[in-house]
């Protein structure tokens, strides 16, 4: 038990009432037990309403129109950018670039910053626990530019080996890119220290915040992150919208990524001049309603409080570890609960995770089975796949109890 457990009690029943999916019953009126929030979170009605209200009242293309709808739409879009900037404590709203998702955010950095700054023989440091989204873009670029990828190793308990990191830093990397919180082992990495060490070695540091921004308070200025990437859909927001936070001076020095409308100041047949930030990186009609929905999602999270959310999820993961470790044959992959966010990936002796997931599903319990887009981490531990239960503000101890009961049932079926 750690001190963050002292946070004020949340009214979980009230929170659950905001999420229509949780009211649903499946397979002969079993309530749905949604334990797959690390893949995507459910959405509160408030977020859906914000988008509907936008579409029903002010839908218009933004930035260039003089009519009322276009002006209102622009204000709502840029207002949401400001609130999202505040949510991660960015110094300026123009440091918030809207993308489709974390994956596109990282690719944007690879294509724009990477192709300008990385050269043959350079070193880029990643970790063995990265999501494919923070591996493949660098692999593609390394194949093109011939730089060297190095990986901070992960120890047996699913934590980064910081001593190995310090060794790697002697290679004078140009870039360090790592996941703030693992979507498989749940480890919350010491981001501030990793960034500080990276900076001392002269590197630019990108943080994959896909799992951290939804679940723990994030302050990009305090972290001193150069880039921070996250997705709305994992934090009560809509699909189709993500963010790349970047420090202004770094974004300013980067060439544009996608070309088209809105990212230009002027265009002639054979040349163009880029627009100012953040527009330089937002080509074409953006995901306007989704940005507004994302704004409503951060409002919703703020109304609960990120400290309270982190504390609550900490309670849940402690409870989940206790309950799951009771079940014979279950092995939880990763560190002890006090070092984790609300993610429990596990194997079950003699039963493939797909079978675990399928049998649980018959009882309305939704967990994910597979490599969770982190094949190399699974390979390293010689596991083909794991089953993963992941939690959010609307998760309950009762749901974890149902999960444990379901696992006993799995045991019964597979004898």
């Amino acid at each position: 038990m750690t001190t963050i457990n002292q946070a004020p009690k949340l009214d979980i029943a009230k929170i659950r009432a905001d999420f229509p999916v949780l009211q649903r019953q499946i397979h002969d009126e079993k309530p749905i037990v949604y334990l797959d929030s690390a893949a995507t979170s459910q959405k509160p009605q408030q977020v859906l309403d914000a988008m509907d209200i936008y579409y029903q009242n002010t839908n218009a293309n933004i930035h260039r129109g003089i009519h009322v709808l276009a002006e209102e739409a622009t204000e709502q879009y840029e207002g949401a950018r400001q609130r999202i900037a505040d949510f991660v404590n960015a110094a300026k709203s123009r440091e918030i670039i809207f993308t489709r998702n974390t994956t596109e955010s990282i690719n944007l950095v690879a294509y724009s910053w990477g192709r300008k700054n990385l050269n043959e023989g350079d070193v880029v440091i990643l970790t063995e626990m990265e999501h494919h989204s923070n591996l493949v873009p660098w692999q593609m670029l390394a194949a093109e530019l011939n730089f060297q990828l190095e990986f901070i190793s992960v120890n047996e308990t699913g934590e980064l080996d910081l001593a190995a990191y310090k060794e790697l830093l002697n290679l004078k990397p140009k870039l360090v890119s790592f996941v703030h919180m693992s979507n498989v082992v749940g480890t919350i990495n010491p981001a501030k220290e990793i960034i500080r060490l990276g900076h001392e070695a002269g590197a630019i540091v990108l943080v994959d915040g896909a799992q951290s921004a939804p679940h723990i308070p994030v302050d990009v200025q305090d972290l001193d992150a150069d880039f921070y990437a996250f997705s709305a859909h994992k934090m009560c927001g809509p699909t189709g919208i993500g963010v790349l936070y970047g420090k202004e001076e770094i974004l300013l020095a980067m060439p544009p990524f996608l070309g088209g409308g809105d990212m230009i100041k002027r265009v002639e047949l054979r040349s163009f001049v880029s627009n100012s930030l953040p527009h330089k990186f937002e080509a074409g009609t953006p995901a306007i309603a989704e940005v507004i929905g994302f704004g409503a999602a951060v409002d919703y999270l703020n109304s609960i409080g990120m400290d309270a959310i982190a504390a609550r999820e900490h309670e849940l993961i402690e409870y989940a570890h206790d309950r799951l470790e009771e079940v014979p044959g279950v092995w939880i992959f990763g560190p002890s609960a006090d070092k984790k966010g609300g993610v429990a990936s596990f194997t079950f002796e003699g039963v493939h995770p797909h079978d675990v997931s399928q049998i649980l599903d018959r009882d309305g319990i939704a967990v994910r089975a597979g490599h969770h887009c982190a094949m190399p981490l699974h390979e390293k531990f010689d596991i083909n796949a794991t089953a993963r239960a992941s939690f959010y503000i609307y998760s309950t101890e009762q749901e974890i109890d149902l999960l444990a009961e379901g696992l006993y049932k799995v045991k019964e079926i597979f004898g």
Partner: protein
Amino acid sequence: MDDLYRELIIDRFQNPQFRGSLDPNDISFEDDNPLCGDHIRIDLRVGDDDVITEAAFDGRGCSISQASADLVVESVIGKTLAEVKNYTKEDVLDLLGIELGPVRLKCALLSLKVVKAGVYGLNVGEAGDDLIE
């Protein structure tokens, strides 16, 4: 438990009848399901008139993929290569006797894909989803 985890499947998963390898063999092919890492290799011996005389599989994965492989291998013994080329998704689902969602379908049909790719003489990487439609 319902239809889905029919005893047949648990039984074939835990006590497969055709797990093993054939060496030498006339046809051998392997592939995997990238979604979950399920892996299946099937070896065949082919006799006169293109009739399959012996068959075996090896692999790892979930009960559906492994039970399906055991059942598919059992079923192709005595068939001609031409007959196996005509195998469809429904043939495999009939063997399993269950209904499956799209993700588990991929588990169930991996063995079909492998055996057909082998019979068609495809190279690794050429086995596409058209084999299991």
